[in-house]
């Protein structure tokens, strides 16, 4: 569920049941609510360089 100050009912409507106005809007929230796993390339990047992130 999304927090939405302007339209609480819309926020509480499950993603699949919302009336999205545009493809941009639909695809953005679809990606937010059904996020893809990190790509293999990003995972490789992390595995190679993440160790250099200092705590």
């Amino acid at each position: 569920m999304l927090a939405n100050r302007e339209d609480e009912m819309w926020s509480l409507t499950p993603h699949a049941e919302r009336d999205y106005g545009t493809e941009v809007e639909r695809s953005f929230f679809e990606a937010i609510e059904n996020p893809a796993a990190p790509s293999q390339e990003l995972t490789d990047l992390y595995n190679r360089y993440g160790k250099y992130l200092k705590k």
Partner: protein
Amino acid sequence: MENTSKNSLDLDQVTIEPLDPKVGRAAFCCGNTRIDNFFRNNAKDQHIKHRVRVYTAIFEGQPIGYYYLVAKSDEPKKVSEEAIEKFGRVNSTPCIYLGMLGVCLQHQGCGLGYLLMLHAMRQTLAVADMIGLYALTLEAIDEPTAQRYERWSFKRFESGGLHMYIALSTIKSLFQTENNA
């Protein structure tokens, strides 16, 4: 990810930290005038006033790379002209915007840019622990860069556009591998 650098840089000796206003910035040169000018002329003032947070990669006391983060609510008109009417219901999509990532010429190709990107993602996660947000967003500098970011799980707001985002949950999944290891 290949390191095709002709230069060498021990990333273990690099620290990424908030901008120290006292650190010299005049000599920084990444080859992109806009990115260089921001760091030389604006970064200090903007950082001190907390309008952005600048993070610098420091090596041997000198800044060799940087990026900045800023909280940003993407307005519909900036996402898509067509989206104004409907996106108005969601007047704000709270995100973190990654701006101006640059690495000085001498150290390009050493993996520092990748490290800065991962650092930005980690900082975004830290912010998300305190304040709700949707995604990390950025504006790719050109199409080849956008395609690279797509391979790193970024998505375009609009087909063919350079305005991109990566869902917070995707970043979270990436870093969970560290926590679960």
